[in-house]
């Protein structure tokens, strides 16, 4: 790894790790995951399923929040506070800067998710659930999803304000969760131009449903290994493509 990329990645991670908001979100993620025990008391049915269902949903929610809130500020703050001058005036290319930022944030997400995951595993085991490999797979898939979200927020952060980045990233996240239903409804779109447009959006926007295996994990259903492999390749391709576009945008940026 190039020294510039490594230095920026480590510093980005350090920045997140010294942010109180980061700890607050991780804390609430853990708190809500653990409070799934309360929900399981109040609900009829398999308590362990409810515990897993609500616990994983809480971890998912707070990890997505961390990814969005950290990502939208990432590049913008560097430009706004002019700290980017100190980095780009050194032998660091703009490509390395973006890659370093992405890797730093990926490391941040890995740490946040790792901390929540370890506590959740212990919690499940403590409640008689034992070690469930499918939960580990769920966290892996969630991590892939977070990488896509981080890449999206980084893309917007490279050329717009945090507020707009937040709106765009949240919109894309929400659309990404339901975009898989497009194939069910595309027959309703009859105008050719409109159909071509929606079709293009379907392929351009991230299909985050590919990373969601919660039902399989909670209900103990079989997981198709090919769908996992496909999701890995999809995340890889999407992140690389988005990083390439971010780099192209960032190369043209001027720092006045």
């Amino acid at each position, binding site marked *: 790894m190039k020294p510039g990329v490594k230095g920026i990645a480590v*510093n980005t991670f350090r920045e997140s790790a010294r942010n109180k908001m980061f700890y607050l979100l991780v804390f609430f993620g853990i708190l809500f995951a653990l409070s799934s025990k309360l929900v399981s008391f109040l609900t009829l049915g398999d308590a362990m399923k409810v515990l897993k269902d609500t616990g994983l949903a809480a971890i998912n929610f707070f990890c997505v929040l961390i990814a969005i809130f950290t990502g939208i500020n990432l590049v913008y703050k560097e430009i706004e506070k002019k700290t980017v001058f100190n980095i780009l005036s050194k032998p660091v290319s703009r490509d390395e800067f973006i890659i370093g930022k992405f890797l730093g944030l990926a490391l941040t997400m890995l740490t946040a998710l790792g901390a929540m995951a370890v506590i959740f595993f212990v919690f499940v085991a403590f409640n008689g659930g034992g070690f469930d490999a499918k939960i580990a797979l769920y966290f892996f898939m969630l991590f892939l999803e977070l990488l896509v979200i981080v890449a999206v927020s980084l893309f917007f952060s490279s050329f717009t304000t945090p507020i707009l980045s937040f709106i765009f990233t949240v919109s894309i996240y929400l659309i990404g969760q339901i975009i898989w239903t497009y194939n069910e409804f595309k027959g309703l779109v009859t105008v050719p131009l409109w159909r071509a447009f929606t079709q293009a959006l379907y392929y351009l926007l991230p299909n985050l449903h590919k990373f969601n295996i919660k039902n399989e994990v909670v209900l103990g259903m079989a997981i198709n290994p090919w769908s996992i492999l496909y999701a890995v390749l999809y995340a890889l391709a999407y992140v690389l493509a988005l990083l390439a576009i971010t780099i192209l945008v960032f190369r043209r940026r001027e720092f006045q």
Partner: protein
Amino acid sequence: MKALEIKGLKKTFRSNFLLKKYNILKGIDLEVEKGEIYGFLGPNGAGKTTTIKCMLGLLIPDAGEILVDGQPAALATARRRIGFLPENPYFYDYLTARELLFFSAALFDLPAAEVRERVAALIHRVGLSGHEDLKLRKFSKGMIQRLGLAQALVNDPELLILDEPFSGLDPVGRKDLRTLILSLREAGKTIFFSSHILQDMELMVDRVGIILEGAIRRQGKLSELISRSTQYCEIVCDRISEKTLAQIQPNFACRDGQFIITLASDADVNLVVESIIHNSGRIVSVTPVKMTLEDIFFNEMAGGANKPPTSRSDGTGGPNRPATTGDRQ
């Protein structure tokens, strides 16, 4: 080979909405020799920072060439030889001074042992010993400026680019910075710095370039610029009657019982001095006054090198009082 060469540098900015063009740099040409201190002088908005940002690849020039030690400045390898202190620097406030220097060094891929040694030495050199583990959010502006200089030196650069390095420094800080810059020149480094503080510049620079409205208006060795400029001589005398003096030299001023005669050329000086002594007058002082950098600068601002120097704004009637215009008071 020059330490820095800029040829025909042009830069235009566009307003966001109307796309109106603003020509910020209109063809900058300048050369910086190795081992010299080059002062880049200009008022606010003249294009100093824009030129520097083009040198460092923070702005993309419309036209022109920038070479650092013969290499295009756009290359990352060229920036390996450069140290840069931005104007009003801002650093990550969650880091300590030591962490920032380690982070800066990490971007250069220097050996770990060398980095440790260099960071410790730099902290001492810029006067931040005892504060190295303090978070930067607790640093004063002067301390940030010192740290900015330390991070600019972390790669032991051949060329140091300082954008308004004296802004925000108290007199002690300014003196320390001057001493540091001069010691760097002694060590063979090339220093390019922009400023609009003329006094600091005049004390240090070997060569100066004056930029106005995006173009270099004057460039050269400071000693040559000053000696080539118009000089005048100020004679202060007393113990002579006003009437007698008026016969020797009709234009003079009177202040605190002493007469002040301002002459345009050295040839007149001997004659006037002899005449005063001959008439039992006493010569208090004879001061040949050279143009200062400030005079040259304001001359350029006024639009021409040959115009007489303008009056000093502080009203002290100092060296840039118009020559041969001494008047009776």
